[in-house]
């Protein structure tokens, strides 16, 4: 258990761009206002993507988050080069996001209840899952099983990290098996799906929560909408693959507004935690 450190990452600086357009209503929103408003559109309440450290702050008690396994970093096992080399892409993502990988994991508490937290970062190569994402999540799941600590994972991902080839595919197997282990230990696992949660992430740990929660309007699905449209050659219905669609189709337990997400999680854990 020597593989976690006690450092909490500092809050990132405000990004250079000062404003953002709401993805639903098009309203122009100042980033500094957004940050104060949980990245909810002040006009239409759309749940915009929430930066990593805001998300961690949202879901954990003040100063309770202690990162683990920050040192685990991607290598380039396939020496993968497309228009750019994977190594370069990694460097750029690290520089851009100031984190080492697409998931940040740690120990935290929620309304006083200790738990293990994993938060994906869509800014890091589209939240794609490679070996590091798989490994870091598997480790918190294993700690959860060993120490009887509930696990909460917040997903935001376009799917597998192609640049790691078959290794990235196998992370689906690895994380899913770790969840089964957690199940056998009767330790709660809550999956939170945020916009977007698709591909290999959706088809592995993100779908396997004892309780699956989605944020309003989040895009969630196995295949991306474009791939489906190309395959079936018809337009997709309005609302297809959105959180509310998944609720209707029985795939998630509830759609929870960001303002009450923490309190809902804490309440669920009080019920499920022995």
């Amino acid at each position, binding site marked *: 258990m020597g593989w976690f450190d006690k450092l909490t990452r500092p809050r990132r600086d405000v990004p250079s761009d000062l404003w953002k357009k709401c993805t639903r209503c098009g309203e122009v929103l100042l980033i500094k206002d957004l940050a104060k408003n949980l990245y909810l559109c002040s006009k239409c309440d759309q749940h915009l993507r929430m930066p990593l450290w805001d998300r961690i702050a949202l879901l954990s008690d003040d100063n309770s988050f202690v990162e683990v396994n920050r040192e685990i970093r991607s290598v380039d096992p396939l020496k993968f080069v497309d228009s750019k080399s994977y190594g370069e892409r990694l460097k750029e993502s690290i520089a851009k996001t100031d984190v080492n990988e697409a998931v940040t994991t740690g120990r935290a508490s929620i309304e006083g209840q200790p738990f293990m937290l994993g938060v994906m970062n869509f800014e890091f190569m589209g939240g794609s899952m490679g070996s590091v994402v798989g490994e870091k999540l598997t480790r918190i799941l294993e700690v959860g099983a060993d120490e009887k600590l509930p696990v909460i994972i917040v997903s935001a991902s376009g799917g597998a990290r192609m640049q790691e080839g078959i290794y990235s595919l196998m992370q*689906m*197997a690895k994380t899913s098996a770790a969840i089964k282990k957690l199940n056998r230990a009767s330790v709660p696992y809550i999956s939170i799906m945020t916009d977007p949660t698709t591909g290999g992430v959706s088809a*592995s740990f993100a779908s396997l929560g004892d309780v699956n929660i989605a944020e309003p309007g989040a895009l969630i699905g196995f295949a991306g909408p474009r791939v489906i449209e190309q395959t079936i050659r018809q337009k997709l219905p309005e609302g297809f693959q959105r959180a509310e669609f998944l609720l209707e189709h029985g795939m998630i337990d509830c759609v929870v507004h960001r303002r009450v997400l923490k309190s809902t999680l804490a309440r669920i854990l009080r019920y499920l935690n022995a």
Partner: protein
Amino acid sequence: MPKEFEFEKSIIELEARISELQVISESGKVDLSREIQAITEKVEALKIEVYGSLEPWQIAQVARHINRPSTLDLIKIICGDEFVELHGDRLFGDDSAIVSGLGRMGNHKVMIIGHQKGHDTEENIYRNFGMPHPEGYRKALRMMRTAERFGLPIVIFIDTPGAFPGIGAEERGQSDAIARNLAEMSDIGVPILCFVTGEGGSGGALAIGIGDRVFMFEFSVYSVISAEGCAAILWNDPSKAKEAANALKLRASNLLEAGIIDGILPEPLGGSHRNHQRAAEEIVKQIEAHLPILKKMTREELIENRYKKFRSMGRFSCEEELENA
């Protein structure tokens, strides 16, 4: 899907000529046996040259050859009429893109599960080109739980372009079905042997791919995404599939080296579609080699070993000093 590939055109052409010459020769008017012999030798040399140095992209084409032995082909050869096909997920439907049932393979009674493609367009439409819906994966899981209940080892044949991307599939939880299988297969208390016989297409392949032993045929592929898909996304140009196939390292030899699979089953020159019987024999050989070992393990040992096997997959660095590099 062509019945022959660009790169084997001259071989197939020559083989056709040989057949014609043989007819003439056998009619008794002219004895062409020496000439036939000579051309045959040249064709064999050409085969070794062509098939011995196939590019990844060419192998990806061989892997999806329309005459490649399908799950039911292999079952027919190995189990004969004793196979009992079992259908349905007991929830929604019977997915024809996945078949399953009881049979005997070598000396072992087993539960067999596999993707099922067709050998012509009509059959392929019926089988949805081997692309399962959630009900296919749920059928597979039901069969695995049945096998576990009765102590039957599970033999799985993997051959799919991927899980079907469609409206119904999403509505009925393609993600849930795949994820559920990944989790549950890590918890199945009987031996599981997987054979990638053709296309190992991403999550749709992996969803029935958590085995105690995983084998690939020599000219099969197994990949996180199809070369075409990868080219479209990363190169923004589907015609770059060759480059993507190279980059993805999707050949059996790559996966063996990466520690993802446990062995490679040899294929005849040109590929298994030229000899189904041979493919079946290679499968039985592995079953006979591995099942006796796996059958001796307890439920707990199987599950623990399987967990460790997949747990170890991945490459990363753990060194703190890299932090400041």
